[in-house]
């Protein structure tokens, strides 16, 4: 198991019902973790509409998770 910290924003924060959490997961990659959480919490955004940041930088979905990682799933942006 890998223990990671997650921070949620915008629609995902509302669907998760909280801004952050620490959790232990068997997911090997960021994509697998998103799939796991999407199913558990009913996230409506398909992974194709979401980006991931790991430790403060955009990352590839197939990045392997390591204990201590901080992840943010990034819904479609809408600044301006």
């Amino acid at each position: 198991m890998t223990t990671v910290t997650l921070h949620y924003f915008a629609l995902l924060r509302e669907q998760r019902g909280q801004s952050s959490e620490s959790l232990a997961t068997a997911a090997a990659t960021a994509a697998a973790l998103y799939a796991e959480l999407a199913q558990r919490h009913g996230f409506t955004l398909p992974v194709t509409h979401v980006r991931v940041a790991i430790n403060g930088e955009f990352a590839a979905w197939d990045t392997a998770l390591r204990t201590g990682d901080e992840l943010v799933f990034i819904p479609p942006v809408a600044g301006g």
Partner: protein
Amino acid sequence: MTFRISSEPLDPNALAAQLLDLRAGAYVEFQGRVRNHNEGQPVHALEYEAYTALAEKEGARIVAEVAARLPILGAACIHRVGRLELGELAVWVGVTSAHRAAAFEACRAIIDETKARVPIWKKEHYASGASGWINCATAGPAAATRITPPAPR
């Protein structure tokens, strides 16, 4: 060269003063304000949220990329977060250059790239009491927003 997220109201005159440069014959500014409608619906207020650490990092990259491509002297972009009322300033971009063409083009590029790349989200609150996160619709590509019905009274 600056990119910043602000939870405080923006003062365009103070921001413009920071870009004073006697080498600059051109100063171009963009103000993005809260509009009272979107996609045919009356809008009541907006709420902006940002992943500030990454937003400022990505925003700084945008300003640096534009400065590397165009002969500009100075550039800054500041984006608000929090709840904004109609007419309030949501985003401000200022660019200086010796001649106008580069300043116009750089200003346009900075706001366009900011909208496309920086992790900032916008929730519209409609006059009907409903609200929705822009670009987060999942009903289909044509829908711009996912509408949450108003809470029962």
